[in-house]
């Protein structure tokens, strides 16, 4: 059981290493990359936008009520923006990139594997990792960054709307607290998270898709597992990155 889990982890890392190496190998599969990017974007953008509005609102309301009780209303804007950009946004990205994007990648590669398409490719001297996995992983990373930006913007606008119109906050205070609490590194770390999430989601989906066990039923199981595994990994990685970030980057409003 434990050796099995370790072996899987080892293979996952081996695939990551192989993908990282293959990213720099020519010829780059530009067409496949664009197609995958477009596909992933099309299945994730709308749900991301729809999820981020209520998410931004919830955070704005919660933070607004807290700051009110603490008598620090003037910080509502900055605090909720930080919460959205640093936590809510990467987590929504994680949810969508693994739930919508990763599952599609895994199902696609899985059904190709059982149809022996990948074997056929390998026999023809073409590496499936370079040809299929690399463009997908890069597309997942790119779309994750894009989504992260989108979710942040929509979330902040949603928060602004709810704070100003429903909680009687003032627009001026909301905006000015940005600059007193938030700083550029907050944005950088948020995008860094997105890139890493995209990479992990892509790799895990590809790994499970390349190794389905026993026929079409195996592909269904693989998709299922890939989503669960990616969730666990992403939430864990998010915690680690957040912890490290808060340790090494001094908060602004000290």
């Amino acid at each position, binding site marked *: 059981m434990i050796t099995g889990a370790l072996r899987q982890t080892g293979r996952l890392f081996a695939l990551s290493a192989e993908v990282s190496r293959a990213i720099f190998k020519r010829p780059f599969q530009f067409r496949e990359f664009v197609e995958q990017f477009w596909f992933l974007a099309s299945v994730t953008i709308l749900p991301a936008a729809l999820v981020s509005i209520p998410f931004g609102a919830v955070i704005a309301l919660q933070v607004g009520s807290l700051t009110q009780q603490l008598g620090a209303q003037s910080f509502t804007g900055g605090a909720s923006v930080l919460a959205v950009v640093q936590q809510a946004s990467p987590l929504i990205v994680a949810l969508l990139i693994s739930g919508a994007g990763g599952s599609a990648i895994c199902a696609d590669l899985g*059904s190709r594997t059982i149809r022996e398409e990948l074997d056929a490719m390998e026999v023809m001297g073409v590496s499936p990792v370079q040809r299929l996995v690399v463009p997908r992983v890069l597309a997942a990373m790119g779309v994750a960054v894009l989504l992260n930006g989108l979710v942040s913007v929509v979330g902040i606008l949603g928060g602004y709307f709810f704070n100003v119109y429903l909680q009687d906050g003032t627009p001026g205070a909301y905006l000015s607290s940005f600059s007193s609490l938030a700083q550029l590194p907050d944005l950088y770390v948020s995008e860094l998270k997105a890139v890493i999430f995209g990479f992990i989601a892509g790799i895990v989906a590809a790994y499970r898709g390349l190794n389905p066990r026993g026929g079409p039923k195996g592909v269904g199981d693989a998709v299922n597992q890939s989503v669960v595994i990616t969730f666990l990994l992403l939430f864990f990685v998010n915690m680690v990155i957040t912890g490290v970030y808060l340790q090494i980057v001094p908060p602004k409003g000290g």
Partner: protein
Amino acid sequence: MGIEVVVEGLTKSFGKQNIWQDVTLTLPAGEVSVMLGPSGTGKTVFLKSLIGLLKPDRGRVLINGVDMVNSPEREIFETRKLFGLMFQDGALFGSMSLFDNIAFPLREHTRKKEAEIRRIVMERIEVVGLLGAERKLPGEISGGMRKRAGLARALVLDPQIILCDEPDSGLDPVRTAYLSQLLIDLNAQIDATMLIVTHNLDIAATVPDNMGMLFRRELVTFGPRELLLTSEEPVVAQFLAGRREGPIGMSEEKDAAALAAEAADPRTRANTPREIVPQLEPSPGLPARRAAARRRERVLGMLDRLPPAARAAIERTYASAPTAPAMPLPAAGSGS
């Protein structure tokens, strides 16, 4: 010239299930060999092991000095480019048209212009009889058409070693006869080493120079076609006659009791000696197969190590002029 494939002591298991062990044989350069065996004896696994898609537990597969089992991944990758493998289920790329499927190896590995690619691909499509279907997706054609497209794709780079996994299954008898001729013609044109896995007795009787058979987790025999066609080995004889009586049962092996009952049955012993049908010749206008001369040399050199029946059959084959059929026998499903 084709390349010799040397297999030494190959053994493969999946978990506890042993598929076959200690398979040792040599596919002579440029010759056509057939591997027979009841369903589920690991013929597909054997082909995939030759090309390095599956890793056998023990043994070696030597091609040009590269061991497809243990050599570094990069060397195996390079050596694979010498192969053309026709998968049992075609293994076409589902998202590409037949044309793009067949053009794939050319686009990946050559710098040919699109017009040139088109010419080569259409030529192959015509050879396998798929003209008019080249724009279709693999999901939109029949199983037999998929197999033929898979063959066309395997051939498009003029490979030096061609492996065909049941090229006949899913084909009607006429197409099978054409396919037999196609394989021989191909061999005459590019002198590639060929290994064909099949259940088809017509192909087995008319196409190969050499034959082998897998049964009960081992290679029963491998040698010149005459060796198997005259074999007294019960498994081989049963398989080649397509009889129910013999060691092969529905679930691969019969138990001893069933075998004893069969032996006692008087109807069983109607063991008619098989006639050996002459091997197919390349179509008129094509060069003679270079492998034929090499094989003659090789087989005549090993005569004294063969059983008398096989020896007699080989002597009969080579008694007359090499181009004319040895005996005026009725052709069994030859496509010429």
